[in-house]
């Protein structure tokens, strides 16, 4: 078996390289090149043309001139709409991440303590909604949250409220939508961390006089730090740029950068400003991405030790 494999490998010297190159090719095609294009457009000027932006390189009086306009970036800094949109996006993302953590941690904890058979079913139930289109699932929330929707009708019929609540098109609806949509991204990394926790460490803590709650705070919680960071970053990073949920469930006053980006791009057709918005968002997100990678690397290191 292994001899066959050896001979196969010697006959295909490039196979190793071919395997490694696939993810790099992916990153190049779908991340690096689009990023460079957006970066290029962000330095251009809006024009009523096709494509709707000026080119950076021009031939002027025998000179090849590269003009990097920073006006789009200056515009973002000077117009409070963009600054507010960034801050509001970050705020919503941080709060939603916190809510996901509060709901997801107990879920992941309980699932990790289940019998293997029930555990697989529970994990399945966490992932199952993702089999339906994201758009449809968010759309379904409109039916649940609207004035005469499922939730209001239910609350009215059991007599908890007298008049229907206004949830749809408020920030509450945005939070509900985000927490609902991103909860699996919190639960799964937390679960994979908690399921590895050595139960004997908890027994040792009980044995040394720690009550269950103290043992949780002193042992389980610190040892699941890597899972908490991974889950939080997996929620925080995409939520900052979220567009669909605030667009469908949020009111006109729900300001999120994803929405601003959409409006710049499709309504104003101002590609250069839209590109600058996207580039700045990416720069803001580099910090949590670095935190995420550091914690992943640390956990890998710990596992090897």
């Amino acid at each position: 078996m292994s001899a066959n494999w050896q001979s196969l490998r010697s006959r295909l010297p490039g196979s190793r390289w071919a395997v490694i190159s696939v993810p790099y090719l992916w990153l190049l095609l779908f991340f690096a090149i689009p990023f460079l294009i957006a970066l290029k457009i962000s330095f251009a000027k809006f024009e009523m043309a096709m494509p709707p932006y000026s080119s950076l390189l021009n031939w002027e009086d025998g000179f090849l001139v590269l003009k990097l306009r920073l006006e789009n970036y200056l515009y973002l800094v000077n117009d409070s709409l963009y600054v507010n949109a960034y801050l509001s996006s970050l705020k919503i993302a941080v709060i939603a991440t916190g809510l996901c953590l509060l709901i997801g941690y107990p879920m992941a904890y309980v699932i990790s303590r289940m019998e293997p058979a029930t555990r697989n079913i529970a994990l399945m139930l966490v992932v199952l909604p993702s089999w339906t289109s994201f758009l449809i699932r968010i759309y379904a929330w409109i039916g649940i949250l609207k004035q005469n929707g499922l939730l209001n009708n239910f609350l009215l019929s059991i007599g908890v409220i007298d008049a229907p609540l206004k949830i749809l098109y408020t920030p509450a609806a945005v939070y509900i939508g985000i927490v609902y949509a991103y909860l699996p991204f919190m639960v799964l990394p937390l679960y994979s961390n908690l399921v590895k926790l050595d139960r004997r460490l908890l027994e040792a803590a009980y044995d040394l006089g720690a009550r269950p709650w103290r043992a949780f705070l002193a042992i389980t919680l610190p040892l699941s730090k890597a899972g908490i960071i991974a889950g939080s970053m997996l929620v925080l990073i995409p939520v900052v740029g979220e567009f669909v949920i605030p667009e469908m469930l949020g009111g006109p006053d729900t300001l999120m950068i994803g929405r601003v980006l959409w409006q710049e791009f499709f309504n104003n057709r101002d590609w250069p400003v839209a590109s600058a918005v996207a580039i700045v968002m990416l720069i803001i997100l580099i910090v949590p991405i670095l935190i995420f990678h550091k914690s992943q690397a640390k956990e890998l290191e710990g596992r090897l030790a």
Partner: protein
Amino acid sequence: MASVDADAAGSNGTMVNSAANPPAPSPDRYLVIDTVRKEFDGFVAVDDVSLTIRKGEIFALLGASGCGKSTLLRCLAGFETPTAGRIELEGQSLIGLPPYERRINMMFQSYALFPHMTVEQNIAFGLKQDGMAKAAMRARVDEMLSLVQMNRFAKRKPHQLSGGQQQRVALARSLAKSPKMLLLDEPMGALDKKLRSQMQLELVNIIEKLGVTCVMVTHDQEEAMTMAHRIAIMEQGRIRQCAKPDEIYEQPNCRYTAGFIGSVNLFEGRIDKDEKDFVTIRTSAFPDPIYVAHGVTGFEGMEVAMALRPEKLRISKHEPDLKHNKAHGSIEDIAYFGSHSVYHVRLDGGCKVMCNFVNMKRWDSESFTWNDPVWVSWGDLEGVVLSS
């Protein structure tokens, strides 16, 4: 004991008063395990075990894996609740007490040190749960670190320590709270052989210095014999024999313990002559009946087994000058251990016996070789007659 307790509670009526004059438990009955039974979904892991353990004793539960020894230990620690039976420490029942309310600490198999805490934080963990003052805690941690000679490693994390060092930390952690009883779960399981024998003696010295009562679980008979004052041999949830190490070795009470501890030659047979001061046993292994120079409780014709340890057998080239207990055969296998050799001798009757030979002089082992015709013989009092 129980009636005294009931009287005190009955006449005074309150728990506080009965605690004011507690029954003085005898040090011989420090820990009482009374018909403890533990079942898991119909499987009986511990089958009506009763034991009494003295104060200050090192007691070993010895058995093959799956014999129920660990389950019994977990019942003592409070991680399992017995299906039935009593466990009392100093006259106080432990049943229903969670582990964090028992003054019993355990050194876990492969130690279960907290990986995110330093050595001193690990040792301080138990003290912290009791709300001990900072200064006192500091002093106690230092004391424990000196006890196990780990002061230099106080700031290290567990993964930066060797197996032996981790064990020292685990021991210090489990002793820091001055427990009424120390439980050891396979204490040497994670150490290599050389370190093991060194740590066994060190561990015993520390435990005896502190005078803490200790119950250990092991599958390693050498470990149990070296460390424990008394050993209980468990098999299928039951205790087969409970005695001092030398008694277990020299006077096993059944075929199982005889075979489990050390190596043994077992000869099945029947009592031939049953006299007051001797018996003879007829076996298929030897042409003549085995002569035992003491009486046994039995009757003629009873099925018994004769247990003979290999080192009780003598091997010689010439016929020994004995009336009984000798047989002729030839050497079939030789296991050379350096200090001694074990010869597997095929007797003329077809049965194979193991026979130890101490290599007292250099090159002694060369005096016998394969297929040599030899005699094996043993003293009249060296065998043990087993009826169960």
